[in-house]
């Protein structure tokens, strides 16, 4: 009797969890199913079967690759894809390195002006980008970085938000780990590189995700900083499909599809590292 009840309970809770998961998957994917289906539809079909809602909304009746052909071959959409990828990878690498360095110094070392530096860093988070967009552009231009790849990512590599994130995680690490290393004769850089950095691996990977997403989705800044078609990024390439006289929906959906799917694949691939990164964290299973 008791066992049966427990089994039922287990079954119920399992059912509940699965119900939740199904709902979550629907909540997050329905817009994407529709978006992906639309990418394979001819223009006449995209908005023709929205109301009333039916399977036709989500499945192309006359699937076509025309949209992709136009986009990739005629409009050379692969170029902005490559640019965006390159810019995102540069941004992520440099950001992780320099932000973790300063976060380490701020959180684990004592020096005069530490509070002030952290305050300065944090204060940059508070002003909306729209408010400093123009002076930021003028500064970048003064440095001769406009119309260059560097101008597209250098202004974003010192990221207060990421520094703040790393600081929070560095603060969680017990001091004895650091003290022991120093007694072994490690220099601060070695402490940072060998001891501390592995400890915040989950945060590093999170930050990499976040920074990648920001960079991938960046739009206004690339728009201001370069008008060179060879340095165009994905978001700008998609935005160009909205014009005053026509909105090229079929290409917009195809473009959104191309801009999303490779990243999803990269993410799925990186999942493994996420788990590994967490398992190998120095603290785990202490």
């Amino acid at each position, binding site marked *: 009797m008791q066992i049966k009840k427990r089994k039922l309970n287990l079954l119920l809770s399992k059912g509940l969890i699965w119900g939740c998961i199904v709902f979550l998957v629907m909540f997050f994917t329905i817009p994407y199913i529709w978006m992906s289906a639309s990418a394979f539809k001819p223009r006449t079909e995209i908005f023709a079967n929205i109301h009333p809602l039916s399977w036709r909304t989500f499945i192309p009746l006359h699937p076509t690759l025309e949209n992709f052909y136009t986009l990739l071959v005629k409009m050379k959409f692969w170029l902005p894809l490559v640019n965006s990828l390159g810019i995102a990878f540069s941004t992520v690498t440099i950001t992780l390195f320099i932000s973790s360095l300063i976060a380490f110094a701020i959180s684990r070392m*004592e020096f005069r002006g530490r509070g002030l530096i952290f305050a300065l860093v944090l204060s940059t988070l508070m*002003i909306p980008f729209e*408010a400093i967009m*123009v002076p930021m552009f003028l500064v970048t231009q003064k440095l001769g970085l406009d119309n260059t790849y560097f101008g597209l990512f250098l202004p974003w590599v010192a990221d*207060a938000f990421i520094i703040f994130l790393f600081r929070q995680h560095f603060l969680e690490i017990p001091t004895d780990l650091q003290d022991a290393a120093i007694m072994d004769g490690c220099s*601060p850089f070695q402490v940072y590189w060998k001891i501390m950095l592995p400890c915040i691996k*989950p945060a590093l990977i999170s930050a990499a995700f976040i920074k990648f997403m920001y960079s991938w989705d960046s739009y206004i800044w690339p728009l201001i900083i370069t008008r060179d078609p060879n340095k165009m990024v994905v978001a700008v390439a998609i935005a160009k499909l909205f014009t005053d006289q026509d909105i090229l929906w079929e290409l917009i959906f195809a473009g959104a599809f191309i801009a999303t799917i490779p990243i999803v694949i990269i993410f799925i691939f990186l999942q493994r590292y996420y788990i590994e990164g967490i398992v190998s964290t120095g603290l785990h299973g202490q």
Partner: protein
Amino acid sequence: MNSEIRRSLRQYSYVIPLILPALIGIAIFQLWPIFESIRVSFYDYKMISGSMKWVGWQNYLKTLQDPLFWQTVRNTLWFFILKVPVQMVFAFGLALLVQTTARGIGILRTIILIPAITSMVVVSVIWGLMYHPNNGLINSFLEYLSLPPQKFLISPKQSMPSIALMMIWKDVGFNMIFFLAGLMGIPSSIYEAAKIDGAGGWEILRYITVPLVRRTTVFVLITNMITAFKVFTPIFLMTRGGPANSTRVIVLYLYENAFIYNKMGYAAAISILLGLFLLTISFISTRDKPY
């Protein structure tokens, strides 16, 4: 012994190379423009012609007396209230769910993160259609459940909640991965010890997990607050502040002043006030105990 260690770390020769790269970047690309913004806030500044006329504190005084500004403050606060608590609880729940290593969980984790990399333009188009008062997906669904159709973005009452829901959908993945990183930082030995002591699932959550991700929670709360107060793009793309000013938020008003009303100085004053407000709140909430 300890004091010796501290002393060795106190040496600037070690500190400077660590902080310099990031500091230079921040100084040039952030602090300098912010300084410019502060300067401009004391002028009547026309962007294109570059003409500047000193007006002292006038821009600030005008802001504080501007009823439209206060309405944008109320709207922004409303957005914050609608979005942040729900999003954080949701994100924390998702993090608990996806931290398990069950099969297929990796896919779910990715799915939750996709909205974050999807361009805001595409998201606003898709959600705009889903919210359509006449033939949107959501109203179709409500109709199916024999519920009355809603007006969503075109009703002054529902516009802000609708945008907040869309932004929760887009941003919850961000928060989730911070919570995930926080959760992963909790040594599994603590859980094991608790289990041995006979703690149940709920008790572990209440007395171990939640307190131990406190710092992450503070971090997520502050960054959410800052991004919520700086919300601009979705509103700019979907409602432009309407209907009846119901979604006119601070940064939209700032943007309009700078780029449409040709009042750059006034816009700068608004942004400095916003920045000061956010800075104060963040510092109050980050004064955590030093190690």
